């Protein structure tokens, strides 16, 4: 049937269209057409997806499946004067490059056409990873978690040690130094006595 010559040097192009399997399609056969050379010859799809395009003279043809929703890859079919068929990938740039594909043609849907932009939807992750939200939540975490850590006895010990260390170092505070400088020695004494008092308490 493939090499059928219908007289006067006319041939047929045969193949089968495979609809996308995941979708439950009704009546996709009516929506799908086969264009040879951009509609010079038109074929229609039968119930099972097979198609035949009759009365094609020898030559080189681009066979494409036209469906409004699904994209199919076009195939170039060459019929030589002896009636031999060769099907290959369409390459408009390197026209001499030949990557053969099986004949009779097997046209499989590549993907669904994405005609529309996807509207941005509100998603929780988008909200959470927003820098403003992170800036708000991190301090909140600190406020909530740190007191919890205080309850832990070991950390309490640790904290104490840290505070002790800070006090042991006896670093003169900047403000005190400045006030001392400006107010003279009179105020210096009470402040030192105060520090002594603290020492006594310990």
């Amino acid at each position, binding site marked *: 049937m493939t090499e059928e010559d*219908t*007289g*006067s040097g*006319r041939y*047929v192009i045969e193949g089968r269209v495979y609809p996308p399997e995941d979708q439950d399609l009704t*009546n996709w*056969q*009516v929506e799908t*057409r086969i*264009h040879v*050379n*951009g*509609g*010079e*010859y*038109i074929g*229609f*799809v*039968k*119930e099972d997806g097979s198609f*035949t395009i*009759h*009365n094609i003279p020898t030559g*080189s043809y681009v066979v*494409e499946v*036209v469906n*409004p*929703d699904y*994209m199919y890859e076009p195939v170039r079919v060459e019929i030589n004067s002896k009636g031999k068929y060769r099907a290959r990938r*369409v390459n*408009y*740039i390197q*026209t001499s490059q030949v990557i053969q594909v099986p004949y009779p043609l097997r046209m499989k849907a590549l993907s669904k*056409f*994405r*005609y*529309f*932009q*996807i*509207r941005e939807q509100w998603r929780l992750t988008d909200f959470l990873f927003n820098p403003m939200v992170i800036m708000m939540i991190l301090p909140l975490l600190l406020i909530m978690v740190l007191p919890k850590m205080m309850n832990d006895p070991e950390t309490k010990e640790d904290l104490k040690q840290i505070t002790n260390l800070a006090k042991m170092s006896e670093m003169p505070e900047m403000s005190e130094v400045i006030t001392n400088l400006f107010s003279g020695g009179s105020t210096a004494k009470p402040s030192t006595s105060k520090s002594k008092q603290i020492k006594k308490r310990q």
Partner: protein
Amino acid sequence: MCIYEDQIGKFDWRQTYVGRIKFAQFDTVSTAKKLIVATEENVLAALHLKTGQVVWRHVFESASTGNIQLLHVSDKIVTVSGSNPYLVRGWDSGTGVLLWEWSLTLQDNDNADFSEWWVQQGLLVHMLPAFNSHIEVTMYNLLTGHNRGATSKLPAPWINEGCVLTPPFYSCISGNVGAQRLLSVDVTSNAVQIISKPLFDYISLDIFEGNLRPLDANSAVPGFIIDDKKIVLIKNNDFELLSVNVADESASASIIDGSNGALLLQAWTDKILGFSLIAHNVNSGQEVSELKCSDRNLRIPEAEIAAVMCTRTAKEHHACRILVNGADDAIHLMQQGGRVLWTREEALANVVAAEFVDLPVSETEATIESEFDQKEGSIWAAFSRRLQTQFQQLQTLLHSFQHRDRMVENSNSNNLVRDYFNLHKILVLVTDVGKIIGMDNLSGEILWRRYEPSLDAESVGVFTRRTAWHPPYDAYLTIVGKHEETGNGLIISLNPINGELVGERFLQLDARLLQCAMLHRADEEKLHGLAVLYEDENIQVFPVSSERLVKDMYIYVADRETAKVQGYALKYDGKSAYAQKIWSVALGGAGAAGHRIVAAAARSRLERTHSPGRALADRSVLYKYTNPNLVLFLTEGPDPVHKEVVRAVAVDVASGAVAAATSHRRARALPLAVHADNCLAYLYRSDKHRRLEIATMELYEGKERWLPAGAAFSSFASERAPAVQRQAYILPAAATAAAPTVTERSLTDRHRQAYNLPAGTTAAAPTITERSLTDRHVLLALTTGAIVEIPWAFLDPRRPAMPTAEQREEGLLPYVPELPLPADAVLNYNRTVHRVSALYTHPAGIESTSLVLATGLGECARIVRECTRTPLASSSPVPCSPPASVSVCAQCASIHVPRRHRVHQPRTRHRPR
């Protein structure tokens, strides 16, 4: 341009058409009742019986390979299409899925056009008459195509061209004048039985004209009409003259199976009485009154019964559905009594010209306009006027509160007013059959229709001579075409808002037209005159009073077949206007015969140039060559060396100077050329690489301006060689890619580039926006049914192969030969439009918005919004007129400015013949 899925149908609509009905039959078998039609446009479709909507549709090839020869509807649909070889296809009537197909090639190719086909008892019958000799009859198995026995030849020396087929009978009037006989033969019967009767048994031979026509609409009983007077049926192998005469000479008659025997149905349209339908009982000759109808208001020119279906109801009443086809391509489905259930304007499948027309402003807006129009007067007068108008507004407001209910009712009919962004317009569509239709562009609803049978719309020109921007004057639109019979000029002027004739009304001219153009200056009534150029190179201006306004006007005439273009200057000498031939160019070249013009693209009248150049990376400006008189001609012709050559020549049609030219070897041109601003693009099919290519050109003056900024372009201002020498430019020298004389003399810089298109294309158009601030796009209608938008940045001829750092800074994309056609650039998403014949674009009142109309086997209108790109983001245009921020305000203000600024330059219109 991208839309969201929830915006489907918000900015667009699609109407599906099938074309003029050739065959129609009711599908009575399947549960959902349908009407199956096959059309002159090679479309097989099922129409919903209640609404007239297309249930499913198959579009065949537009060439003769898709011609539908036979439509047979039983439990399956059978079509025979093509013209030797033929294709026999079976379809499921419910779903429209192909069931079987087989091909059939006739050996006798010369007479194949006379073939007749019909289906009889599961066999496909093919009959081929050989006049004055014999009839060849072949029968095929409908499903497989197997031949049942050989071709049988019936000797029949009496057959002639006037014979008619009423399956299975083939009937003729033959014999010498005065002794004619009526002959008929059942071509499918095994035993050849010729029925032969003298003709004077049926009709008086004294007034006989020899006319025989079959009954219409798949008549239940084979029969024919002799001389538009008598109806003869063939029953039991004998003729039977009906007692009922043909009611009107133009009546279309059909026999249907009624409840009490067969019924004869006749339909015709009388000029005065309108549409009439009568029914008679065949056996008794009595009129069946319940089917009769006569409607004065229903105008169906040359009404013809396309299909009839009658069912019996319980009370022996007839419930009929009658499909009536008119000469204006409209089909009407009627029920008994003449009530029209639905009408389809199939003329719209063949739109030849379309025009967007602005609507008038609403009454309240008009008063505001008039308030600000009156500039003179003191401040007190203005103040009192203001108080007055505000009082009026208050009154209308109160009025609207009182009559709110009535307002809602009226709003449907009275809402033909301009909206805020001037998106709402009227589409005036001129169709091939001569029907002019006014359509609402937002809803696609037909507002008015007018059938002009004498209009030959083959090369029609539509001119909006006055827009609705000039109250109190109404809009004024003129259609210039040819007379169907004489070929002389025909002018139809109408008000595009309501479709009523105005001004010249319906005017038949006395001579053939060469060209017509609209004067660029309007008269006191804001009406632009129409200048027509007759074949004898005389000129006439409509109205005559506008003749004095003829000044600085140039028109050109392009002969499609010889590729010769001639330019005329229109002048006014104080008494009358006359045309003077000033230049002539042979685009094919002097030696090359057989060149023909495939396409001509001029700049749109509505387009304006926003920026005079584009900024380069080194802060210099590359100034554009924006010649409003430039027209791109695309020619095609044979070449001794390269088989076929496509040439693109850009001609200044005012002076005849050639601005640019290129040629492509071994290529065939497509009639698609686009011209906007300084950008030119055209398509051709490269035979060498077997692909479709789009070539683009941009014209630049160089880095220095020829004219001071703001000066209007003049085709005659720059120093150029005289017109006589110019013919030499396009000769073989121009055919080569680099023609040095052209380059240094007129243009300093030209860029060309070719891109591949991975798809077939049927129509092309540039987008037009109000102020051309938005990036330009090229719209292409593909053979797949998609309308794709390609940004000019992708088509930019300056795209370099290896961009330098400077070019990258300028924003030029590196050259990629294959153009991307992403799915989100498809304007009509999955609402495909097949066989698009043309794309029309029109600016809306809001910048970055363009209105698009695609016509083909389905009208599709679309508002294209370039919202995703801000118009000012494009770095290339050098703002010359208002700075960017101001122009945004100007867009809003432009709604209220009653007059649009038009570029005052000599303007030419073209119409290739």
